């Protein structure tokens, strides 16, 4: 089936060439980082994780959200989603690929990465994260590929796939839960030390992922003869509406606990993010933008009139995606490191090469995504006799 990705329109080649160019720039920057060290980034002794780990965290969410199309179809027999499960699974594959790359570019000694396998340490959450992420990648590749192949040959998917599909549902939840556990089990990091971190991660994931999938469905509809379907898009939009509402609710729960209890170690991080601390507050405008975007998107998505209007829906999905990205991709990680454990306020701002490397990884993700979607959509067109 892979050959389907090799032929396409001029636009398709142009897009791929553009992605390759971004990857090239990112790779060049990475070579520089590889020879100089992580000193070319904005990270420091105090903010020791930055943009890379934040992107990783956000993308684990996008990957996990595939479960939002798989679960209704396979567990509740919601037939409509049968058309798009493959898109969800392939989005997951592309996202996990980016996650793994983001972890990799963040390592100080990338050539020693096998040490994680040579000296397995089950007491480390990072060890488990590696297992669940790689497992999830494998599951989605196998399931997506085999189901698509069966569809192409007009036969039912092999029986042994069923248990794997069921397994992939809790597995999706596990990847984001384990990722939250990376942060929320650390003593002395008041911002993350909250039992609601994993639920918060999941709710923002189930908003951002399906919102992105809606946008992708619309692009597919525009560029190809395959229509993911109006009903499908509307059902996904409802998922986004609930998830983003729950996400804001969880955040407000957090705010209540932190400020009503009044424990400084917990308050200071949120203060830093939203009003600044000791005169420093690089993220303040970002965080407020994120909050406003999320609230606007709730209004647009919960109201059926605006949700059913597909133009408005596009706007709402972009708002959700950008809003949750700022929250997780910018605020969540540096917010936890400022102030530092000794209560110094040392801010973090990513550097240009750091951003270019991150863009390069995103471009690799989009490349994988484009190839997989191209294959899936071409086969869907063939099966429907459209091609």
């Amino acid at each position, binding site marked *: 089936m892979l050959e389907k990705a090799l032929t396409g329109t001029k636009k398709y080649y142009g897009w791929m060439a553009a992605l390759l160019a971004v990857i090239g720039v990112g790779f060049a920057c990475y070579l520089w980082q590889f020879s100089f060290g992580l000193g070319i980034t904005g990270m420091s002794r105090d903010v020791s994780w930055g943009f890379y780990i934040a992107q990783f965290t956000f993308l684990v969410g996008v990957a996990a959200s595939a479960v939002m199309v798989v679960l209704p179809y396979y567990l509740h027999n919601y037939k409509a989603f049968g058309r798009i499960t493959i898109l969800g699974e392939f989005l997951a594959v592309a996202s996990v690929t980016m996650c793994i790359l983001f972890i990799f570019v963040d390592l100080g000694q990338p050539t*020693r990465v096998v040490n994680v396998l040579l000296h397995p340490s089950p007491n480390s959450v990072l060890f488990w994260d590696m297992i669940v992420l790689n497992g999830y990648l494998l599951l989605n590749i196998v399931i997506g590929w085999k189901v698509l192949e069966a569809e192409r040959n007009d036969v039912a998917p092999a029986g042994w796939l069923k248990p794997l599909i069921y397994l992939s549902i809790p597995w999706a939840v596990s990847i984001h839960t384990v990722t939250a556990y990376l942060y929320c089990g650390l003593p002395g990091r008041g911002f993350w030390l909250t039992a609601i971190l994993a639920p918060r991660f999941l709710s923002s994931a189930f908003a951002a992922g399906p919102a992105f999938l809606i946008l992708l469905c619309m692009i597919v509809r525009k560029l190809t003869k395959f229509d993911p379907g109006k009903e499908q898009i509307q059902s996904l939009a409802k998922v986004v509406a609930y998830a983003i509402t729950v996400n804001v609710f969880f955040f407000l729960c957090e705010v209540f606990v932190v400020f009503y209890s009044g424990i400084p170690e917990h308050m200071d991080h949120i203060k830093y993010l939203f009003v600044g601390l000791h005169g420093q507050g690089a993220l303040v405008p970002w965080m407020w933008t994120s909050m406003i975007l999320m609230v606007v998107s709730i209004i647009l998505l919960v109201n059926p009139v605006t949700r059913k209007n597909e133009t408005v829906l596009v706007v709402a999905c972009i708002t959700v995606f950008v809003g949750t990205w700022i929250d997780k991709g910018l605020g969540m990680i540096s917010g936890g490191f400022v102030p530092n454990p000794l209560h110094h306020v040392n801010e973090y701002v990513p550097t240009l090469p750091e951003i270019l490397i991150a863009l390069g990884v995103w471009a690799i993700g989009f490349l994988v995504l484009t190839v997989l979607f191209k294959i899936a959509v071409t086969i869907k067109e063939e099966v429907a006799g459209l091609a």
Partner: protein
Amino acid sequence: MVIDTRKLQSEEDLEPMIEVCDKIHNIPKFENKNHEIKWLWAEEFKHEFPMQEPDFLNDRLKHMSFLTLCNHCEKAPCVRVCPTKATFKREDGIVLMDFHRCIGCRFCMAACPYGSRSFNFRDPRPFIKETNPDFPTRTKGVVEKCNFCAERLAVGKMPACVEASNGALTFGDLDDSESEVRKVLRSNYTIRRKPALGTGPSVFYIV
């Protein structure tokens, strides 16, 4: 380790200890604060003991400098999170690092509630004033911290900072009730950093 801060009033009193630690452990000096490597350094009360600062703290303590170093925690979070066992706890309780195994994921830095760890953001070697051939230099991309002078303990010497402290620092086996540290602890009121976290720091401060 017990630090008698009554005998270490000013920043100058701390300097010889910091200097000797930096020197024997090949610690580089960087212009860029982001890249800083610190094993032993000075902090004010409010940073050394955040959230433990009483209102109306007396002036002497308020403006004094406190020695800051790895606490060699009894239940060390850095050991717990390390995915390669590059950070590990020795039988005797000292928390050590294997610089050749560390992958530079910096999980341990996020986990340490005392900011005791530094990361080599670039090759440190050109920034070491005078290399001590008896102690390894590090490469870029690995984490490091105070090792309680394990290399000196191995040959029966006291940690370098203890030796340079003129008796202000006492070092020994906390599990041995007859040891010098335990004697000092028995007869003085001491505090530890962030005791509420349950990490069990092994560094005590007489204030």
